[in-house]
């Protein structure tokens, strides 16, 4: 770039001078201009001082602390994924198979969506048929269960017990006692040992 007459060095030219790439005509000006020379030397002094700043390093365990918070991807999972991708894209034939499967999948999904949208009444009638059938099956099952229960040999004994209030109270008390006894025994069984177990030293 030609130097306009009377012009001093711009910051860019001072940078060039610092980098040792100042054009000849600017160099000639610098040799004669005391203002530019002082500025250039001042800049060089600053740059040298900054460049001489001490090197700094973080603590020795810095990398460990960083790695403790970094999630490294599982190489096995990545390799499996890459292997599958490679296998699928290995030959034109495997690529064609993969593309066909994808197309088939996407096509069937699109087809089912389209069919559902155009046959909403059919879907609703199928739904109500299933609901009616389900209700009927549930009612028949309940009736069958009840009649089966009545025909059991122990049913009459239970009815006799429930009909007599004294026997009912006695039966309930016995059942409650058996239940409480069971809970207590279970708690004793599951309680942690209060004394050290010889073979379980940590």
């Amino acid at each position, binding site marked *: 770039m030609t130097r306009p007459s009377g012009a001093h060095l711009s910051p860019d030219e001072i940078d060039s001078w610092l980098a040792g790439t100042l054009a000849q005509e600017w160099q000639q000006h610098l040799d004669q201009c005391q203002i530019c020379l002082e500025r250039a030397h001042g800049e060089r002094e600053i740059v040298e001082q900054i460049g001489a700043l001490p090197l700094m390093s973080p603590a020795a365990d810095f990398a460990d602390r960083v790695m403790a918070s970094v999630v*490294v*991807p599982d190489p096995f999972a990545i390799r499996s994924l890459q292997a599958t991708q490679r296998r699928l894209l290995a030959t034109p034939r495997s690529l064609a198979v993969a593309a066909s499967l994808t197309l088939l999948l996407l096509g069937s999904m699109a087809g089912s969506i389209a069919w559902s949208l155009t046959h909403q009444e059919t879907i609703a009638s199928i739904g109500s048929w299933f609901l009616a059938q389900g209700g009927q099956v549930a009612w028949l099952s309940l009736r069958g269960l009840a009649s089966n229960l009545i025909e059991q040999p122990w049913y009459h004994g239970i009815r006799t017990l429930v009909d007599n209030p004294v026997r009912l109270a006695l039966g309930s008390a016995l059942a409650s006692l058996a239940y409480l006894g069971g809970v207590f025994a279970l708690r004793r069984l599951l309680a942690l040992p209060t004394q050290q177990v010889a073979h379980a030293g940590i």
Partner: protein
Amino acid sequence: MASRRPDWGGLSDHEVVLLARAGQESAYRELIRRYERPVFALLFRMVRDRELAEDLAQETFVKALNAIDSYRPEFKFSSWIFKIGNNTAIDHLRRRELDTLSLDGSPHAETPEAMQATALQIGARQESPLDTVEAKELGGAIEAAIGSLRPEYRSCILLRHVEGRPYEEIAEILNLPLGTVKTYIHRARNELRQSLAHLKE
């Protein structure tokens, strides 16, 4: 099967990043080893507090390494990590500036008495005696002068003259036009010269 240890010295940053993406933990450690010193040095000179700089450097590396898949290889890895580091430091400095109470009192104070009661200056850029001692330990006047620069000037001058990064890369790191970077560096050098001249006097 014995795992093959790559010759890290012969690998570019991009190749190490590819190994990290493949799940090699040693590649992550290699990236930390390559950039922990320059990133820490930049952050330390930005915030002037060793412990805080370590925390910010740690945050920088954790952010970068956890997002290693989003790194785009057309950019230099150094630019990417310096950009994350610089943004982390600038965010911190902005938060600290917001936390600083105004000279005229809290902005939430509703009466003149409340304003007076909260009128206290803990300037973010003002040097505490501890900072001053630390600056002396670090190499004195020039460190203190750099510490008094605006954060944007500080980033530019440190990246240029401490890390030796070209102007174009600094523009990329700081997301600034090239001309702005040159202006900032020139102004920063001017301010440093004036600060040092005052100290000499």
